[in-house]
Protein backbone atom coordinates (compact mmCIF):
# COMPACT_ATOMS: atom_id res chain seq x y z
CA UNK A 1 0.00 0.00 0.00
CA UNK A 2 1.09 3.55 -0.50
CA UNK A 3 0.42 3.94 3.20
CA UNK A 4 3.34 1.62 3.79
CA UNK A 5 5.73 4.14 2.35
CA UNK A 6 6.21 5.77 5.69
CA UNK A 7 8.09 8.99 6.06
CA UNK A 8 9.75 7.80 9.28
CA UNK A 9 13.51 7.87 9.07
CA UNK A 10 15.09 4.70 10.44
CA UNK A 11 18.30 4.94 12.41
CA UNK A 12 20.50 2.03 11.34
CA UNK A 13 22.16 1.78 14.76
CA UNK A 14 19.07 1.77 16.95
CA UNK A 15 16.82 -0.24 14.63
CA UNK A 16 18.58 -3.51 15.51
CA UNK A 17 18.66 -2.66 19.19
CA UNK A 18 15.44 -4.48 19.99
CA UNK A 19 11.95 -3.34 20.88
CA UNK A 20 11.03 -2.75 17.26
CA UNK A 21 10.80 -4.65 14.00
CA UNK A 22 13.91 -3.88 11.93
CA UNK A 23 12.00 -4.64 8.76
CA UNK A 24 8.94 -2.65 9.74
CA UNK A 25 6.84 -5.74 9.25
CA UNK A 26 4.93 -7.90 11.71
CA UNK A 27 6.15 -11.33 12.75
CA UNK A 28 3.25 -13.19 11.11
CA UNK A 29 3.60 -11.44 7.79
CA UNK A 30 7.34 -11.96 7.68
CA UNK A 31 6.99 -15.67 8.41
CA UNK A 32 4.35 -15.91 5.70
CA UNK A 33 6.89 -14.41 3.29
CA UNK A 34 9.55 -16.91 4.32
CA UNK A 35 7.12 -19.78 3.95
CA UNK A 36 6.14 -18.56 0.48
CA UNK A 37 9.80 -18.28 -0.43
CA UNK A 38 10.42 -21.92 0.48
CA UNK A 39 7.30 -22.88 -1.43
CA UNK A 40 8.55 -20.92 -4.43
CA UNK A 41 11.76 -22.97 -4.32
CA UNK A 42 9.70 -26.17 -4.44
CA UNK A 43 7.78 -25.03 -7.50
CA UNK A 44 10.96 -23.79 -9.17
CA UNK A 45 12.47 -27.22 -8.65
CA UNK A 46 9.46 -28.92 -10.20
CA UNK A 47 9.30 -26.60 -13.19
CA UNK A 48 13.04 -26.84 -13.79
CA UNK A 49 12.81 -30.64 -13.66
CA UNK A 50 10.07 -30.34 -16.25
CA UNK A 51 12.41 -28.21 -18.37
CA UNK A 52 15.13 -30.84 -18.06
CA UNK A 53 12.95 -33.68 -19.32
CA UNK A 54 11.46 -31.51 -22.00
CA UNK A 55 14.88 -30.65 -23.38
CA UNK A 56 15.99 -34.23 -23.11
CA UNK A 57 13.01 -35.55 -25.09
CA UNK A 58 12.44 -32.42 -27.18
CA UNK A 59 11.75 -34.39 -30.37
CA UNK A 60 8.91 -36.50 -28.92
CA UNK A 61 7.49 -34.04 -26.41
CA UNK A 62 3.79 -33.21 -27.00
CA UNK A 63 2.73 -29.61 -27.62
CA UNK A 64 0.35 -28.67 -24.82
CA UNK A 65 -1.64 -26.46 -27.19
CA UNK A 66 -2.62 -29.58 -29.11
CA UNK A 67 -3.51 -31.53 -25.97
CA UNK A 68 -5.78 -29.13 -24.11
CA UNK A 69 -8.25 -28.09 -26.77
CA UNK A 70 -11.58 -28.72 -25.07
CA UNK A 71 -14.12 -26.07 -24.27
CA UNK A 72 -17.41 -26.57 -22.39
CA UNK A 73 -20.58 -26.89 -24.50
CA UNK A 74 -18.51 -26.99 -27.67
CA UNK A 75 -17.57 -30.21 -29.44
CA UNK A 76 -14.78 -28.83 -31.64
CA UNK A 77 -11.26 -27.97 -30.63
CA UNK A 78 -10.07 -24.53 -29.55
CA UNK A 79 -6.50 -24.21 -28.49
CA UNK A 80 -5.67 -22.67 -25.14
CA UNK A 81 -8.95 -20.82 -24.74
CA UNK A 82 -10.12 -22.68 -21.66
CA UNK A 83 -6.73 -22.37 -19.95
CA UNK A 84 -6.81 -18.66 -20.74
CA UNK A 85 -10.21 -18.50 -19.06
CA UNK A 86 -8.81 -20.28 -15.99
CA UNK A 87 -5.86 -17.89 -15.88
CA UNK A 88 -8.16 -14.93 -16.10
CA UNK A 89 -10.36 -16.26 -13.26
CA UNK A 90 -7.33 -16.69 -11.02
CA UNK A 91 -5.95 -13.23 -11.84
CA UNK A 92 -9.40 -11.72 -11.23
CA UNK A 93 -9.67 -13.49 -7.87
CA UNK A 94 -6.22 -12.13 -7.00
CA UNK A 95 -7.53 -8.65 -7.78
CA UNK A 96 -10.61 -9.12 -5.58
CA UNK A 97 -8.29 -10.31 -2.80
CA UNK A 98 -6.12 -7.20 -3.04
CA UNK A 99 -9.32 -5.11 -2.99
CA UNK A 100 -10.36 -6.93 0.20
CA UNK A 101 -7.00 -6.01 1.75
CA UNK A 102 -7.50 -2.41 0.64
CA UNK A 103 -10.99 -2.33 2.17
CA UNK A 104 -9.46 -3.74 5.36
CA UNK A 105 -7.04 -0.83 5.51
CA UNK A 106 -10.04 1.51 5.57
CA UNK A 107 -11.73 -0.65 8.24
CA UNK A 108 -14.58 -1.21 5.79
CA UNK A 109 -16.01 -4.50 7.02
CA UNK A 110 -18.70 -4.74 4.34
CA UNK A 111 -16.13 -4.24 1.61
CA UNK A 112 -13.89 -6.95 3.02
CA UNK A 113 -16.83 -9.38 3.16
CA UNK A 114 -17.86 -8.67 -0.45
CA UNK A 115 -14.38 -8.93 -1.97
CA UNK A 116 -13.37 -11.97 0.06
CA UNK A 117 -16.57 -13.72 -0.95
CA UNK A 118 -15.79 -13.06 -4.63
CA UNK A 119 -12.27 -14.37 -4.10
CA UNK A 120 -13.60 -17.63 -2.69
CA UNK A 121 -16.01 -17.94 -5.62
CA UNK A 122 -13.18 -17.35 -8.11
CA UNK A 123 -10.98 -19.93 -6.43
CA UNK A 124 -13.77 -22.49 -6.51
CA UNK A 125 -14.39 -21.87 -10.24
CA UNK A 126 -10.70 -22.40 -10.88
CA UNK A 127 -10.69 -25.68 -8.93
CA UNK A 128 -13.71 -26.94 -10.85
CA UNK A 129 -12.09 -26.00 -14.15
CA UNK A 130 -8.96 -27.87 -13.23
CA UNK A 131 -10.93 -30.99 -12.35
CA UNK A 132 -12.71 -30.69 -15.69
CA UNK A 133 -9.43 -30.41 -17.54
CA UNK A 134 -7.94 -33.39 -15.72
CA UNK A 135 -11.00 -35.41 -16.67
CA UNK A 136 -10.53 -34.67 -20.37
CA UNK A 137 -6.82 -35.37 -20.22
CA UNK A 138 -7.35 -38.74 -18.52
CA UNK A 139 -10.22 -39.60 -20.86
CA UNK A 140 -8.23 -38.81 -24.02
CA UNK A 141 -9.32 -38.64 -27.65
CA UNK A 142 -11.72 -40.92 -29.51
CA UNK A 143 -9.04 -42.56 -31.65
CA UNK A 144 -6.36 -43.02 -28.98
CA UNK A 145 -2.81 -44.08 -29.79
CA UNK A 146 -0.92 -47.30 -30.45
CA UNK A 147 1.90 -48.57 -28.29
CA UNK A 148 4.20 -51.53 -28.64
CA UNK A 149 5.85 -53.23 -25.72
CA UNK A 150 7.36 -56.56 -24.71
CA UNK A 151 5.12 -58.85 -22.69
CA UNK A 152 6.19 -62.41 -21.76
CA UNK A 153 9.01 -62.25 -24.27
CA UNK A 154 6.86 -61.22 -27.25
CA UNK A 155 6.02 -57.85 -28.80
CA UNK A 156 2.45 -56.75 -28.10
CA UNK A 157 0.62 -53.93 -29.90
CA UNK A 158 -2.22 -52.20 -28.11
CA UNK A 159 -4.53 -49.21 -28.66
CA UNK A 160 -4.98 -47.04 -25.60
CA UNK A 161 -6.73 -43.77 -24.84
CA UNK A 162 -5.94 -40.83 -22.61
CA UNK A 163 -3.17 -40.34 -20.14
CA UNK A 164 -2.21 -41.56 -16.70
CA UNK A 165 1.01 -42.00 -14.77
CA UNK A 166 2.12 -44.94 -16.95
CA UNK A 167 1.02 -44.07 -20.48
CA UNK A 168 0.17 -40.95 -22.43
CA UNK A 169 -1.47 -41.06 -25.83
CA UNK A 170 -0.31 -37.55 -26.72
CA UNK A 171 3.39 -38.26 -26.40
CA UNK A 172 5.98 -38.98 -23.77
CA UNK A 173 4.54 -40.41 -20.51
CA UNK A 174 6.70 -37.98 -18.50
CA UNK A 175 4.58 -35.16 -19.89
CA UNK A 176 1.55 -36.65 -18.16
CA UNK A 177 3.53 -37.31 -14.96
CA UNK A 178 4.69 -33.70 -14.77
CA UNK A 179 1.25 -32.44 -15.69
CA UNK A 180 -0.44 -34.39 -12.92
CA UNK A 181 2.22 -33.55 -10.37
CA UNK A 182 2.70 -29.84 -11.06
CA UNK A 183 -0.92 -28.87 -11.71
CA UNK A 184 -1.99 -31.22 -8.94
CA UNK A 185 0.43 -29.66 -6.47
CA UNK A 186 -0.69 -26.21 -7.56
CA UNK A 187 -4.35 -27.24 -7.40
CA UNK A 188 -3.82 -28.46 -3.86
CA UNK A 189 -2.38 -25.04 -3.03
CA UNK A 190 -5.48 -23.43 -4.51
CA UNK A 191 -7.63 -25.77 -2.46
CA UNK A 192 -5.84 -24.92 0.78
CA UNK A 193 -5.98 -21.25 -0.20
CA UNK A 194 -9.76 -21.46 -0.55
CA UNK A 195 -10.01 -23.22 2.84
CA UNK A 196 -7.80 -20.58 4.51
CA UNK A 197 -9.86 -17.83 2.88
CA UNK A 198 -13.09 -19.40 4.14
CA UNK A 199 -11.69 -19.55 7.69
CA UNK A 200 -10.62 -15.89 7.55
CA UNK A 201 -13.95 -15.00 5.89
CA UNK A 202 -15.84 -16.45 8.86
CA UNK A 203 -13.61 -14.39 11.16
CA UNK A 204 -14.41 -11.26 9.17
CA UNK A 205 -18.16 -11.88 9.36
CA UNK A 206 -17.95 -12.51 13.10
CA UNK A 207 -16.11 -9.22 13.46
CA UNK A 208 -12.98 -10.72 15.05
CA UNK A 209 -10.58 -8.57 13.06
CA UNK A 210 -12.70 -5.43 13.31
CA UNK A 211 -12.55 -5.76 17.08
CA UNK A 212 -8.79 -6.27 16.91
CA UNK A 213 -8.46 -2.92 15.16
CA UNK A 214 -6.85 -4.09 11.94
CA UNK A 215 -7.32 -6.64 9.16
CA UNK A 216 -3.81 -8.01 9.03
CA UNK A 217 -5.05 -11.60 8.92
CA UNK A 218 -6.75 -10.80 5.60
CA UNK A 219 -3.42 -9.48 4.38
CA UNK A 220 -1.62 -12.67 5.38
CA UNK A 221 -4.11 -15.00 3.71
CA UNK A 222 -4.00 -12.57 0.78
CA UNK A 223 -0.24 -13.09 0.48
CA UNK A 224 -0.79 -16.82 0.21
CA UNK A 225 -3.54 -16.34 -2.35
CA UNK A 226 -1.40 -14.07 -4.53
CA UNK A 227 1.38 -16.61 -4.38
CA UNK A 228 -0.97 -19.25 -5.78
CA UNK A 229 -1.74 -16.87 -8.64
CA UNK A 230 1.97 -16.21 -9.14
CA UNK A 231 2.74 -19.91 -9.47
CA UNK A 232 -0.07 -20.34 -11.97
CA UNK A 233 1.36 -17.58 -14.16
CA UNK A 234 4.55 -19.65 -14.46
CA UNK A 235 2.75 -22.97 -14.90
CA UNK A 236 0.61 -21.36 -17.62
CA UNK A 237 3.67 -20.20 -19.52
CA UNK A 238 5.92 -23.22 -19.18
CA UNK A 239 3.26 -25.86 -19.51
CA UNK A 240 0.75 -24.44 -21.94
CA UNK A 241 2.35 -21.65 -23.94
CA UNK A 242 5.89 -22.79 -24.67
Amino acid at each position, binding site marked *: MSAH*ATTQKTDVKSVWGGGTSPFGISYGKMMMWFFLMSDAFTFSGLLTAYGFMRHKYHDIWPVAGDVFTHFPFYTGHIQLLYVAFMTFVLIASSVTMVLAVEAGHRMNKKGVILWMFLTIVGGSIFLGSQAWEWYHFIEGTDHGAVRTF*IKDGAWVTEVFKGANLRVNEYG*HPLFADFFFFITGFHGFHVFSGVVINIIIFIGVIKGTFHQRGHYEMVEKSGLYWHFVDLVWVFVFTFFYLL
Partner: protein
Amino acid sequence: MERDDIYEYSLDTHHSEEEGKKVRKKIYQVLGIMSAVTIFEVGMGMKFSEDPSWAVYLKYIFIFLTLVKAGYIVMVFMHLGDEKKNFRWIVLAPYIVLVGYLIFIVLTESVYSGTIRLFDPLIHTLTGGGAH
Protein backbone atom coordinates in the same frame (compact mmCIF):
# COMPACT_ATOMS: atom_id res chain seq x y z
CA MET B 1 -3.74 -12.02 26.95
CA GLU B 2 -2.93 -8.67 25.45
CA ARG B 3 -1.21 -9.08 22.05
CA ASP B 4 0.80 -5.90 22.08
CA ASP B 5 3.21 -7.24 19.46
CA ILE B 6 0.59 -7.09 16.72
CA TYR B 7 -0.31 -3.50 17.47
CA GLU B 8 3.25 -2.39 17.69
CA TYR B 9 4.29 -3.62 14.27
CA SER B 10 1.07 -2.90 12.42
CA LEU B 11 0.96 0.85 12.79
CA ASP B 12 0.92 1.47 9.06
CA THR B 13 -1.86 -0.91 8.06
CA HIS B 14 -4.45 1.84 7.80
CA HIS B 15 -5.10 4.44 5.19
CA SER B 16 -7.75 7.06 4.52
CA GLU B 17 -10.55 7.07 1.93
CA GLU B 18 -8.49 9.45 -0.15
CA GLU B 19 -5.46 7.17 -0.30
CA GLY B 20 -7.75 4.18 -0.84
CA LYS B 21 -8.96 5.69 -4.09
CA LYS B 22 -5.41 5.99 -5.39
CA VAL B 23 -4.59 2.43 -4.34
CA ARG B 24 -7.69 1.07 -6.08
CA LYS B 25 -6.88 2.99 -9.25
CA LYS B 26 -3.47 1.35 -9.29
CA ILE B 27 -5.02 -2.11 -8.73
CA TYR B 28 -7.39 -1.69 -11.69
CA GLN B 29 -4.53 -0.44 -13.84
CA VAL B 30 -2.53 -3.58 -13.05
CA LEU B 31 -5.58 -5.74 -13.78
CA GLY B 32 -5.82 -4.08 -17.21
CA ILE B 33 -2.14 -4.68 -17.95
CA MET B 34 -2.24 -8.32 -16.84
CA SER B 35 -5.40 -9.07 -18.85
CA ALA B 36 -3.91 -7.45 -21.95
CA VAL B 37 -0.71 -9.46 -21.57
CA THR B 38 -2.61 -12.73 -21.11
CA ILE B 39 -4.83 -12.07 -24.14
CA PHE B 40 -1.75 -11.23 -26.20
CA GLU B 41 -0.03 -14.42 -25.04
CA VAL B 42 -2.97 -16.65 -25.89
CA GLY B 43 -3.42 -15.00 -29.28
CA MET B 44 0.23 -15.50 -30.12
CA GLY B 45 0.11 -19.03 -28.70
CA MET B 46 -2.67 -19.91 -31.18
CA LYS B 47 -0.68 -18.41 -34.06
CA PHE B 48 2.49 -20.07 -32.80
CA SER B 49 1.26 -23.59 -33.55
CA GLU B 50 0.38 -22.68 -37.14
CA ASP B 51 3.60 -20.88 -37.94
CA PRO B 52 6.71 -22.53 -36.48
CA SER B 53 9.09 -19.87 -37.85
CA TRP B 54 7.92 -17.61 -35.04
CA ALA B 55 8.58 -20.17 -32.33
CA VAL B 56 12.10 -19.10 -31.32
CA TYR B 57 11.25 -15.43 -30.78
CA LEU B 58 7.91 -16.16 -29.14
CA LYS B 59 9.54 -18.39 -26.56
CA TYR B 60 11.61 -15.52 -25.23
CA ILE B 61 8.74 -13.03 -25.54
CA PHE B 62 6.55 -15.36 -23.45
CA ILE B 63 9.20 -15.80 -20.76
CA PHE B 64 9.76 -12.04 -20.62
CA LEU B 65 6.01 -11.32 -20.37
CA THR B 66 5.68 -13.94 -17.64
CA LEU B 67 8.37 -12.19 -15.63
CA VAL B 68 6.55 -8.88 -16.16
CA LYS B 69 3.31 -10.41 -14.82
CA ALA B 70 5.15 -12.02 -11.91
CA GLY B 71 6.75 -8.68 -11.09
CA TYR B 72 3.38 -6.94 -10.97
CA ILE B 73 1.91 -9.66 -8.74
CA VAL B 74 4.79 -9.60 -6.27
CA MET B 75 5.42 -5.86 -6.22
CA VAL B 76 1.84 -4.52 -6.38
CA PHE B 77 -0.55 -7.27 -5.27
CA MET B 78 1.72 -8.66 -2.58
CA HIS B 79 2.94 -5.14 -1.72
CA LEU B 80 6.58 -6.18 -1.67
CA GLY B 81 7.34 -2.96 -3.52
CA ASP B 82 5.98 -1.03 -0.52
CA GLU B 83 7.99 -2.93 2.08
CA LYS B 84 11.33 -1.68 3.31
CA LYS B 85 14.24 -2.10 0.96
CA ASN B 86 16.18 -4.46 3.22
CA PHE B 87 13.21 -6.82 3.54
CA ARG B 88 12.60 -6.73 -0.19
CA TRP B 89 16.11 -7.96 -0.87
CA ILE B 90 16.01 -10.56 1.89
CA VAL B 91 13.12 -12.20 0.03
CA LEU B 92 14.30 -11.66 -3.54
CA ALA B 93 18.10 -12.02 -3.48
CA PRO B 94 18.40 -15.65 -2.29
CA TYR B 95 15.66 -16.65 -4.65
CA ILE B 96 17.17 -15.00 -7.71
CA VAL B 97 20.66 -16.36 -7.01
CA LEU B 98 19.67 -19.96 -6.22
CA VAL B 99 17.00 -20.41 -8.86
CA GLY B 100 19.13 -18.68 -11.46
CA TYR B 101 21.86 -21.18 -10.76
CA LEU B 102 19.43 -24.10 -10.75
CA ILE B 103 17.99 -23.15 -14.14
CA PHE B 104 21.47 -22.66 -15.59
CA ILE B 105 22.89 -25.97 -14.42
CA VAL B 106 19.80 -28.12 -15.08
CA LEU B 107 19.16 -26.82 -18.57
CA THR B 108 22.85 -27.14 -19.48
CA GLU B 109 22.86 -30.76 -18.35
CA SER B 110 19.55 -31.47 -20.09
CA VAL B 111 21.07 -30.65 -23.46
CA TYR B 112 23.88 -33.15 -22.81
CA SER B 113 21.43 -35.67 -21.49
CA GLY B 114 19.37 -35.27 -24.65
CA THR B 115 22.40 -36.07 -26.81
CA ILE B 116 23.32 -39.27 -25.01
CA ARG B 117 19.78 -40.55 -24.65
CA LEU B 118 19.68 -41.60 -28.31
CA PHE B 119 21.70 -44.64 -27.17
CA ASP B 120 19.13 -45.48 -24.52
CA PRO B 121 17.21 -48.67 -25.46
CA LEU B 122 14.47 -47.99 -22.88
CA ILE B 123 13.05 -45.16 -24.96
CA HIS B 124 11.58 -47.61 -27.47
CA THR B 125 9.42 -49.37 -24.90
CA LEU B 126 8.30 -46.07 -23.39
CA THR B 127 7.02 -44.41 -26.51
CA GLY B 128 6.34 -47.31 -28.81
CA GLY B 129 9.20 -46.58 -31.16
CA GLY B 130 10.30 -43.04 -30.53
CA ALA B 131 11.62 -40.72 -33.16
CA HIS B 132 15.00 -42.38 -33.61
